[in-house]
Each structure stands twice: as structure tokens, then as C-alpha cells.
């Protein structure tokens, strides 16, 4: 078949760190390595770099810099936010509201809390992946202490009505956390206007480094620590500061939010061309997620009669990196909980493909995928006992 090259369509999983970001980080490995929590000038320069990054993160989401806490990634941010609020407010109530389509870093924390005396309502979503605001309102009880709803879904890209959710939470005096790991760098965020009380983000999703993220905690919100120890991060998150990571996170989020609209426009155009091409060329295909309220780089489609892992493997043979919501690909043997939540039957969910575009995507990539994907799907269908031509 065609010559093999790297067509990276898995930006939603992780992506590269921009060379400009790496460059900003470099001096902090070998030269400006001083402990940001130390007294001496050399360490205070590190501290200053940390504080600059904190401001960059704060600015990107409309927060104040003393509301930003650096953590190791999206999972830690989610764990801290949810457990930290749950434990700190358990005297007020033991009820948490979330959705069925959260990332596992939220869902498994909720399950953990259920095993520890909390009650969790998992809101359902419609076929496009949107929650129902009335259902949310009805779910609120006297005991509700936290609403945690993701900003944008990592699999199907659906963007929730965050400002509306924030308004409801604020009116009812309930703390509102949003997992914005997929949203930052793709959607304009303003924690003030949107009444967000806590927000998780992770550097590696917007061309920052891996191993660094942040939790925004609105001033005055009571929260228990997750990592106890030294007095770093104003005594809320122990551990020697990951200086290069923090500096890189700051730079990356600044770059990502500076020209958000142009960037999105470019990605969205390519995405739409790819999506339309797929829908035209491949029969028995269903788009998953909301047709408009979705992340600019996200495509999620189900091809009937075939299974996702074998699809990925064939794509991989042609140099295309993508992901699927099929059981067999992830070591777990269930199809994606997100695809089931939007009402896909298991067998259709197994045949799903996520192509997530980003900075590395070119028009040639789109051409190439549009050329080979229909053939691959056809080949697999011809092998499938479910498919009748």
C-alpha cells in the first residue's frame, strides 16, 4: 500500500511539546535549577519563574494567580478537587452530582467515594452527549456538596453548557468543579463569568509538557489536601516544585490561549473536511457527539459491523495514529462508557473511531486518511460476519 509516514490523529490523548515551550524549559533543567522554596537569591529566581507561570495560567482562565495550584496532571487535579471537597465538606452533606460520561479520573474517584459513604448521582446525557439542566436541578438535594461536570468530553468532544451549570450551582450554593482537561486551549474559559469554583487542566493536552497540570481553586473554598508534606503551593500541595514543567505549562497555556480563535478555525476547517469526507465515502457510519457543540479537533464516528482495535491496527500499519472506544483496545473488555451513555448499542460502540486533530495535522493528512480509511473499513467489513453487502 501507500508509503508509511506518521499521521498523528490522537491529539486528544496527548501531543508533542512545542519547541518554543521546550526552549523556555531548558534553562530550568541545568542552569536555573534552584529550589523555588529556598531563601537564597538563586532559589528566589526559580520562585519568580513559578509565579510568572502561575499568572499565565490564571490569566488564561480568568482567575487570580493565587487561585492556581500546580499539580502533576489532569488525574491528580480531578482526584484532589473531588476528594478534597468531599472530605472537607462531609459535615454539610454526602451527595455529589456528576455525569455518566466523565473521564475515569472523575468516575473512579466518585466510585471510591461511594465506597466511603458518599452518594453520587450520575446524570445521563442525550444522544449528543449533553446533560439536561432540568435533570441537574432535580438531582440537587440538601445534601449536595459538589457538582462535578466536565467541560468537554474527551471521546466525543461534546461541550457542556458550563456557564448555565455554574449559574445553577451558584444559586444553590453548591461547589462546582469542572474537568477542563480537554477544553483548555480549545474553548474560551472564564471561571468568573462561568461561576466555576474548581477547574482541572493538564499541560500535555495543549502542547505543554507531560507531568504537569493545575487545579484552580476559587479563593475561600475549603478543601482538604491530597498530597501532604512540605509547605509548597501555599501549604496545599507538597513536593519540590517541578520547575521546568511549571515554566513550560505557563508558556504553553499562554501560547494556546493567545490565538485560540485562529487556531481553532484552522483545525475546525480541516476537521469538517475530514468528517464530511468520511460520512460521504463510508456507508453505515454514525457521527457521535454533538454536531456543533464539540471540540474543534474532534471526530468520533462508529462504523457498523467492525471492531475498533482491528481498525486501529490497520490504520497503524499505514502510519495513522488514532483511538477507539472499543473494549479490546484498552485492556479492559467493555466498550466506552461514553458511547454507551449516548445510547449506542454495544456492537456499534465497538466499531468506533476517534480522530483528534491538532497542531500537527496538515491538509495532506486529511487527504491521506480520506483515501485509506474507506478501504480499510471495507476490508474489515468484508471479513465481518455481521456485514451483508
Amino acid at each position, binding site marked *: 500500500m501507500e508509503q508509511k509516514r506518521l499521521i498523528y490523529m490522537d491529539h486528544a490523548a496527548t501531543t508533542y511539546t512545542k519547541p518554543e515551550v521546550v526552549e523556555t524549559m531548558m534553562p530550568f533543567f541545568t542552569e536555573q535549577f534552584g529550589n523555588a522554596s529556598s531563601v537564597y537569591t538563586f532559589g528566589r529566581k526559580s520562585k519568580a519563574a513559578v509565579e510568572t507561570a502561575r499568572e499565565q495560567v490564571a490569566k488564561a482562565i480568568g482567575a487570580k494567580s493565587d487561585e492556581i495550584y500546580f499539580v502533576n496532571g489532569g488525574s491528580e487535579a480531578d482526584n484532589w478537587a473531588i476528594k478534597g471537597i468531599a472530605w472537607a465538606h462531609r459535615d454539610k452533606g454526602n451527595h455529589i452530582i456528576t455525569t455518566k460520561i466523565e473521564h475515569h479520573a472523575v468516575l473512579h474517584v466518585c466510585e471510591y467515594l461511594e465506597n466511603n459513604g458518599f452518594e453520587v448521582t450520575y446524570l445521563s446525557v442525550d444522544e449528543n452527549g449533553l446533560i439536561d439542566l432540568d435533570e441537574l436541578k432535580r438531582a440537587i438535594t440538601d445534601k449536595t456538596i459538589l457538582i462535578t461536570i466536565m467541560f468537554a468530553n474527551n471521546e466525543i468532544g461534546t461541550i457542556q453548557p458550563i456557564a448555565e451549570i455554574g449559574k445553577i450551582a451558584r444559586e444553590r450554593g453548591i461547589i462546582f468543579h469542572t474537568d477542563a482537561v480537554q477544553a483548555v486551549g480549545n474553548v474560551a474559559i472564564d471561571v468568573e463569568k462561568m461561576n466555576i469554583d474548581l477547574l482541572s487542566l493538564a499541560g500535555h493536552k495543549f502542547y505543554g509538557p507531560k507531568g504537569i497540570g493545575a487545579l484552580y481553586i476559587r479563593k475561600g473554598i475549603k478543601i482538604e489536601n491530597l498530597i501532604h508534606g512540605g509547605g509548597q503551593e501555599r501549604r496545599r500541595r507538597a513536593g519540590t516544585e517541578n520547575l521546568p514543567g511549571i515554566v513550560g505549562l505557563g508558556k504553553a497555556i499562554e501560547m494556546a490561549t493567545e490565538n485560540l480563535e485562529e487556531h481553532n478555525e484552522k483545525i475546525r476547517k480541516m476537521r469538517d473536511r475530514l468528517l464530511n469526507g468520511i460520512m460521504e465515502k463510508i456507508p453505515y457510519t454514525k457521527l457521535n457527539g454533538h454536531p456543533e457543540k464539540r471540540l474543534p479537533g474532534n471526530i468520533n464516528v462508529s462504523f457498523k459491523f467492525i471492531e475498533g482495535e*482491528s481498525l486501529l491496527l490497520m490504520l497503524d*500499519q499505514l502510519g495513522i495514529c488514532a483511538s477507539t472506544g*472499543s473494549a479490546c483496545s484498552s485492556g479492559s*473488555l467493555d466498550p466506552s462508557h461514553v458511547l454507551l451513555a449516548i445510547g449506542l448499542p454495544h456492537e456499534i460502540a*465497538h466499531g468506533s473511531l476517534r480522530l483528534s486533530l491538532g497542531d500537527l495535522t496538515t491538509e495532506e493528512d486529511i487527504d491521506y486518511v480520506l483515501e485509506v480509511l474507506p478501504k480499510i473499513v471495507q476490508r474489515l467489513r468484508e*471479513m465481518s*460476519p455481521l456485514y451483508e453487502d
Partner: protein
Amino acid sequence: MYSDKVMDHFMNPRNVGEIVDANGVGEVGNAKCGDIMKIYLEVEDNIIKDVKFKTFGCGAAIASSSMATELIKGKTLEEAWNLTNKAVAEALDGLPPVKMHCSVLAEGAIHKAINDYRIRMGLEPWEDNITDLDDHHHHNNE
């Protein structure tokens, strides 16, 4: 993750298709679980003259189907019946532990096809000790 042999049989599967006038057909698996394997046999004088498969499933399932059909082609029914999933996996230079069950599917589908043939021939079906193949997945939420 997969051996070269697996990738070869996955990318260039042998014996894909249907046998229209097969005299033994077996299907195992469950679309809900993401895997269905269907084996078509053409048996003559107790010998598997031809075999074809159709599989909906992961790479390991497709490669196992391909390898298993290769291994039983031209063999007696007894030989084919005695083909274990381990033998299929070994012939593929191994499968990842989580993927071993995909080779079990192949063994199961062959058994079903052979018994289908035996029943059609008015013979007693052989006793199959592979059970529950249509819902072999442990659905756990972890």
C-alpha cells in the same frame, strides 16, 4: 504488542470468506462483547477439504481465525477437534495474556462447526468442554 506472525495473519488473513455450500458451520462470540467468529467447513471423507472464516473482533481474533483455519485445513476432524487455543497462540508466536481468550474463540468456533457437521451427518456431537463462549468477557468496571 503483537508478534510479527500475528500482524502478518492479521494484515493478510488466510481463508477469509464464506463457503456457500459448507456442510459444517460454527459461530461463537457475541457482538455485545465485540467479537463474533464464524467458521465454515467443507468436510469430505472425514477430512477438512476447505475452511473459511468471518470474524468481527480485534486483531488477535482475526489472526487467530486465520491461523486456526490454516492449521486445520486438510486435517481429519479428530485432528481439528484436538487443536487447542494454545497451539493456535503458539503458532502465532504467542499472544498477549489479555488476548489469549481470542484464540479460545477459534477453538470454540471449530468445535461448533465440527459438531454442526456431525449433527448434519446424524452423528452424536462430541462433548465440548469449552463453555460460555458467547459471554466469555468478565465485565468489570475497574
